[in-house]
């Protein structure tokens, strides 16, 4: 019964939602469909104390669904515009963001600014560092990657360090790095964390029917592997909540070919 097990996207949403468990009264920010649905699922199931926005400027106690809706459909419970986002959420450490950078390296350093070339003339200009330098030095961060490859999990350091990692060479003497707190990485293949020696990246669980070798071959650097389990399948109750938060099934567009949770 593949359908009853949900899709790989559903499984990833549930795995991502675990990153927000027990975080307390902080802003849970999920950027992109799967992280955002994960934050909503966490709030509607195990962690109702989480706070979140409507994606614009208002805090909501009922996560807003993905996709087109009426502008005033969301019920405003509070106010958190960009104009006070750093004062209230980022620089106070009261936030946990889950995002999808373009590259990540063995130190957890991330890049979404540019690829190749030089800073004066990049080969490919992307978004810019956005708020990543501040996010990563002040509050917890997790990552979701829909396509786990060596192009994303790069062999050397990322092309432009846009987010702080655990690279000792980047630790300026006297700087306060106590807020650096990288938590969970969920991909289309597995769940990882930073629990290896010296915060190195460690394999936590493999998605159903995925082998360790497949993960290692898709990663440009060595991973800590020890006791690994199988990532749990989504439950019927979780799938029902996800469907309500994503009535148009936008999550089906995230992972190539939208495979089932079990490869079968």
């Amino acid at each position, binding site marked *: 019964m593949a359908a009853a097990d949900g899709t790989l996207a559903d499984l990833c949403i549930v795995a991502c939602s675990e990153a927000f468990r027990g975080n307390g009264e902080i802003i849970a920010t999920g950027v992109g469909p799967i992280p955002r649905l994960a934050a909503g699922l966490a709030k509607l199931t195990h962690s109702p104390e989480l706070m979140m926005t*409507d*994606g*614009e*400027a*208002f805090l909501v106690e009922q996560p807003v669904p993905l996709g*087109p*809706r009426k*502008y005033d459909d969301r019920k405003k419970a509070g106010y958190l*515009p*960009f*104009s006070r986002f*750093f004062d209230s959420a*980022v*620089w106070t450490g009261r936030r946990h963001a889950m995002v999808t950078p373009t590259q990540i390296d063995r130190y957890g350093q991330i890049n979404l*600014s*540019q690829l190749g*070339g*030089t*800073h*004066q*003339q*990049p*080969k*490919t*200009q*992307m*978004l*810019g*560092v*956005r*708020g*990543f*330098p*501040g996010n*990563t*030095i*002040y509050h917890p961060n997790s990552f979701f990657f829909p396509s786990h490859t060596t192009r994303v999990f790069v062999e050397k350091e990322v092309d*432009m*360090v*846009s*987010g*702080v*990692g655990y*690279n000792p060479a*980047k*630790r*300026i*003497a*006297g*700087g*306060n*790095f106590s*807020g*650096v707190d990288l938590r969970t990485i969920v991909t289309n293949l597995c769940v990882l964390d930073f629990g290896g020696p010296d915060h190195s990246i460690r394999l936590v669980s493999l998605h159903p029917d995925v082998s360790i070798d497949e993960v290692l071959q898709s990663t440009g650097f060595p991973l800590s592997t020890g006791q690994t389990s199988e990532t749990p399948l989504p439950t019927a109750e979780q799938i029902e909540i996800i469907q309500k938060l994503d009535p148009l099934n936008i999550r089906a567009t995230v992972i190539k070919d939208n495979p089932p949770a079990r490869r079968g």
Partner: protein
Amino acid sequence: MTLDKRMTTQEMVAGLQDGMTLGIGGWGPRRKPMALVREIMRSNLRDLTVVSYGGADVGMLCAAGKVKKLVFAFVSLDAIPLEPWFRKSREAGQIEVLELDEGMFQWGLKAAAFGLPFLPTRVGLGTDLAELGDLKTVQSPYADREVLIAMPALRLDAALIHVNRSDWRGNVQLFGADTYYDEWFAKAASKTFVSCEQLVDRIEDHYPDDAHANTFERCFVTGVTEIPCGAHPSSMPPLYGPDMKAFKAYADAAREPGDWSAVADIFVASDADAYLSSVGGREAVMNIPLAIY
């Protein structure tokens, strides 16, 4: 001293000079003073240092070769994540940049507003920003001895901002869910030029109940001009949303050969009235739905 700050957009641009540092309010494709940007596009101004949470304002000024240096944290059109004209300019190595985190950026505006040389922050430590931007560190003189980035003041020669309402004295009112860092652009600048959707004579006679929407005071306003739909194609909540059709045409025009001079007339037009007619007129713009995020 006259308090009548009404000016034409041409007079505002005449108050700018080559080589100036120009702050542009708004955020990505939201609340951008695009009518004022288009007036700069029609001028001979060049070698500008542009400080912006960037959208099509940055893309256009880069495409036209008016930008010497860009101070930015991102340049994006939201639903079109990568601003295509900015991208072309960067990949051709045409502009100098100071790349900053979004929070450092507003911190630099605040340092400028308060007349400080810098404000300390942890942000930037552990990333490539400090080295690439030649940002210096400073050590706490207190017992903690913490080493911090000294975020330099982002002093602006002029700021451009589009607001919902103003009177001729520069008493502005800003509405919408989020007014971003417009107030700090105004305070960081030597001169602030404001365009507005609606100009009234004495705002206290018309909208006294909206005085809380006066997010920056009139001492920070140099000139005002009324330009309905002046943020188009960016959004101006609560009046109108971003014109994604117009943004798509603008983005498509960047594809090969992607020659700005061949398409500039479409996106700049000869004046504000001609521009508004070319995009369907006031009613059409006012009917563009607000963005759902």
